């Protein structure tokens, strides 16, 4: 399974790409919905891109429950762990 740091880097890269911000402006505790340019649909697109990247399908409760990059990383790791 990829390490936390590696997933965090991927998630930040996807968030930055989707929202058009510099990766350096994002941190593990960044709230996705608070990032400039974010709205509910864009956040869902971010989640969908992350799902495709790792070939996983997150539970709806997780999709709508996560707020920060860290939380996304946690549910991605859990999904990857469940897929093993």
């Amino acid at each position, binding site marked *: 399974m990829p390490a936390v740091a590696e997933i965090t880097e991927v998630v930040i890269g996807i968030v930055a790409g989707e929202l058009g911000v510099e990766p350096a402006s994002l941190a593990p505790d960044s709230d996705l919905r608070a990032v400039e*340019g974010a709205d509910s649909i864009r956040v869902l*697109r971010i989640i969908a891109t992350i799902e495709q990247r790792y070939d996983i399908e997150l539970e709806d409760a997780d999709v709508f429950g996560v707020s920060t990059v860290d939380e996304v990383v946690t549910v991605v790791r859990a999904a990857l762990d469940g897929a093993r």
Partner: protein
Amino acid sequence: MITGNAVDTAELIDTEDLAAAVDAFLGALPPERRWDAEQSLDWARADAGRLTDGQRSAVEFVTVIEDHLPGYFDIYHRSFPVDSSVDPAVFAHHRELYHFTVRWAAEEDTHARALARYQRASGMRERDELRTDLAGYGRQPFLLDYAHPVQFFTYALVQEKATQIYYQQLRADVADPVLSDLLTRLSRDEARHFTFFADVVTRYLRVHGDRVAAPIRDVIADFRMPLADIRGYWRWALRIADVARYDHTDAYDHLVSVVDRAVDHRTEPLDELIRFVESCRTVTTLTEGTHS
């Protein structure tokens, strides 16, 4: 699944006031402009081969939404009962509303029937397969746990306008003239339905003023599209949004306009309501590949 209760009848507008809105709705569509799923469209020319994969998925999506009519209709039946559980004066109000509800339901059922027929006639799906698929979605409960009557009409106002906007935008891109014709009819019907709900919400605002600001606000605060509770719904909705913009908050401007036109003078509660509704709009343009 039985959920929800009858509305707080003390908050209803007068029966005569409601009846005026129902009369206007029923009078807005002369018999010669009505249509049905059997005779009005040239099904022999329907061709899903002219659609993109995304457009076909969009047709499937809106078929599911329209086909959930029994759930929507049941909400009205339980919330505005026309039986001995209500006193005669309330019954009279609900009976007037029922004149609207059955016509509205007949039109929505025509939508579901026409979209399903399009899928069959255009080669998208076989009838048995489609019926089985729709039954899976149709059995899902549809919940609107509102107490104030204005909340039902506010929810429907947003839902009808959002659907109308989506049909218009989908129609702009499809190459099958039969689907284009169908989407035009659907869009026009949803526009009339929106007008009714806007009329009723306006009447509530004029009668109750500030007192309906909070109930309307609660509808927007908790707004969820029909079937949004279905697992993975958001993935499908995202794909649909890639075909034609599908965002219920597009309808919020129209709700703001209704509030604006209904009152001569804005009060603080209504100002706060409008600020809140505007804050709920999706504030940025959508990402690449999305039409706006």
